[in-house]
């Protein structure tokens, strides 16, 4: 039954509010991080945020359903995977294979790849019974997962793993397999941590409560109090937090805007989760339904992990806060993700 095209206003509003928070975050932190070219730094983020806001509205008019259902969609998946593999052929940037220099920008392909993998998995799950989907889903997950893990980027690879696992769970994964997968996942994570020195080191410090970054994140949040120190009032950003504009954006916002600010931001991700899942339910067991579900979880789980690290209830793991953290790739990927959600929401049955 045809109905009037109307996007989900809640998701759109939440995404826009987060974009504003992102500009505030970068404006506040930039002076410390980039010496000399602060204005260029801030300007870049503002211009990019404005572009993203515009892109959101432009993108929702575009019907993504034919793309998702297109027989050549797997080629997009393989292209993304190839891009991830291609990173290892490039010289390492800051000792990791995460970025590709494109013009003046550092692009992080895994930010986009994770979305394409979730969409690919959504296709696989929607087209098959669970039993037949298990192996293709597993392989389609494993290849990019391992590539990202080897970059090394435990944050995004782990996020991808958890999201795809949740999608499989929704499809009807038997509880016996759930237990098995959980055990296997734990093992993989444990190995990934144990294999790399600095991760183990961080974990030990976290357990001992002496981890410098998370301590200062707590100081930032705690000293912010109920209403914070005001825009630009953060002091922890100066050097306690090594990445105030990316991995600890939430703590800095908490210092400047207090509990009021942190709960508001948390609530915005809650809104996206609630409306995203409602959308997935409305779309049912279709490709679009699984896509909406996967993308919603991808965004909110990432946000929740970032916040959990900032409030020090999970070991420190560098991961950006969608829309808020500085970084072009992260911002563009979040925009793409919400753009797809909005596009789907406009055309739900």
């Amino acid at each position, binding site marked *: 039954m045809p109905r009037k095209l109307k996007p989900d206003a809640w998701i759109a509003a939440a995404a826009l509010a987060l974009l504003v928070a992102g500009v505030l975050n970068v404006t506040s932190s930039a002076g410390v991080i980039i010496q000399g070219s602060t204005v260029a730094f801030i300007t870049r983020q503002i211009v990019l945020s404005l572009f993203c806001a515009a892109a959101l509205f432009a993108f929702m008019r575009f019907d993504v359903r034919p793309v998702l259902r297109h027989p050549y969609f797997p080629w997009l998946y393989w292209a993304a995977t190839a891009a991830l593999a291609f990173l290892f052929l490039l010289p390492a940037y800051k000792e990791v294979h995460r970025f590709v220099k494109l013009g003046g920008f550092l692009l992080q392909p895994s930010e986009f790849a994770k979305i394409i993998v979730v969409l690919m998995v959504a296709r696989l799950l929607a087209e098959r019974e669970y039993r037949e989907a298990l192996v293709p889903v597993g392989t389609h997950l494993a290849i990019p997962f391992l590539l990202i893990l080897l970059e090394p980027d435990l944050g995004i690879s782990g996020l991808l793993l958890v999201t795809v696992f949740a999608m499989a769970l929704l499809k009807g994964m038997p509880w016996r397999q759930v237990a098995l997968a959980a055990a296997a996942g734990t093992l993989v994570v444990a190995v990934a941590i144990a294999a790399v020195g600095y991760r183990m080191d961080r974990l030990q410090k976290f357990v001992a409560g002496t981890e410098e970054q998370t301590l200062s994140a707590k100081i930032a949040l705690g000293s912010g109090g109920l209403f914070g120190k005001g825009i630009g009032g953060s002091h922890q950003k100066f050097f306690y937090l090594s990445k105030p504009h990316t991995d600890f954006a939430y703590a800095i916002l908490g210092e400047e805007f*207090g*509990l009021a600010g942190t*709960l508001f931001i*948390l609530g915005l991700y809650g809104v996206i989760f609630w409306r995203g899942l409602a959308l997935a339910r409305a779309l049912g067991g279709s490709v679009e339904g699984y896509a909406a579900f996967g993308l919603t979880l991808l965004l909110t789980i990432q946000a929740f992990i970032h916040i959990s690290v900032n409030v020090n209830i999970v070991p420190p793991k560098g991961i950006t806060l969608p829309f808020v953290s500085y970084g072009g790739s992260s911002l563009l990927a979040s925009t793409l993700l919400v753009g797809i959600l909005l596009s789907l929401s406009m055309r739900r049955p």
Partner: protein
Amino acid sequence: MSRRFPLFYLVMGTWMLILALRLGQIQVLQHEHYLARSLHTQRVEEFVRRAEILDRNGRLLAGSETGFSLSVALDTRSAAFTPEDLQEVARCLRLPLDQVKAAAAKRSGYSVVTRKAEYGQIQALRALGHKGLLLPLQHQRVYPYEGLTEHLLGFVDYKEDGQAGLERFYDARLKGRPGAKMILRDSRRASYDLDQVLEAPVPGTPLETTLDIPLQHVGTEALAKLDAVCRPEWASATVMDPRTGAILAHAIWPPLDPGARGQARDERLASHPFEPGSIVKPLLAEAALARGVARPDETIWCGHGAVTLLGRTIKDHAVFDDLTFTETLMFSSNVGCIKWGQRLSGADFMEALHRFGLGRKTGIDLAPESPGSLPPARRANELARAYMSIGQGLSVTHAQVLRAYAALANGGFLVTPHFAADFKEERKAAADPGALRILRNILFQTVEAGSGKKARLDGVAWAGKTGTAQKAVPGRGYVPGSYVSSFVGWFPVDRPQALVLVVVSEPRGVFYGSEVAAPVARDIAHYLNLGGRLGETI
């Protein structure tokens, strides 16, 4: 598929709840705790070194150096002291152990042990190398020409703020502007330098003066000889370039007590006016010549040593009968000068004094400056004018005398006496060139054959005038036997390069300006004339 949706709501909802509770715990319950540990910014001033004061040849007159302060303090907040440490500190400082322990007992970032350590003790403490020992550095103003310049340069306080003399007048310029930067502090640790400069420090601009130290020394030595001659209350000798107003030397006697630098100030030059006596006569002579009421060779009846005006008799210092106009000045006849002075109208008389800058500030770079005093026109009756003709009943500062005589010397321009080499000069025409030509010749003869003879020196063409004024003491009027004697003159007479003013207050025994002041001027001229040093110095 939809059967499992509630599971996700439950998991994510729980997660979100945990996060919210955790945020409440950190941001509300533990707020005080973390606030105390948080960093806060603090603005600190960054010291800039006070700039130097130099003489005209670049000799250092005042400079700032970094040295140890003599205080010793303990940082008991961030460093720990064992009993052995304290014993060592007490031993190095030779202080009772209890005093050191008392300082260590205070919880403070800067607990003072003593403010009077000795240099060797500071060195010994440095050798201990304890990081809680605070041995601050401090800037110190040094004056290499102690005994010659302190009355001019003044002094600075412990913050290096100028308190007197040139140090005060040029304080802002010498000090520059301290910078400011932001540092971070937290309650546990010391500060963190952010390298965040709020205001860049602006260093002070060195003050190059017009002073010439050797000449200053010569002036001081010449004055010192007066002690044996007349034991004056005080005396001063000033040398200025009459073409520009640049002061080359200003020596005083007795010298200031070097131990009492805190009181080091000499305001004679600009702020202590005195009654000038006969040295005012040439200024009025210029007016009489310019107005055409007197000619140099006309004869004036000098009253046989006295003149009576409005019932008051004014005596001369010697008995003169007939003198030419020129001779009234050469021999400084009071009656003669009163006589031709009477030919000037009251307005012309006062105008002449004003024209030469008496009664108003010169603009010299010393503060405070006094304008001296001239009686108002309505009170300047015939008797008052008669007294003013001989330099009594009005008061002038040294700076005003220098300025007026510079105009006589340089062809009639008022210059501003000054010490700073880059002083913005102002020149104003003040006198009649024709009258000045005649007057210069009269003043030349005054030194050659008149009252200024004792300043005469072979090879030096002086033009000068002596003065001997009775000194008025507030409340007591003129005190018998209390004089201010002076000599002021320049050379070479036609191409003036140096103007010398010598003032001797309360000479005893011999007291005439011609006897006590003129010889000092001769000594100065002798030095300047030696081996062509005149051209070299000025």
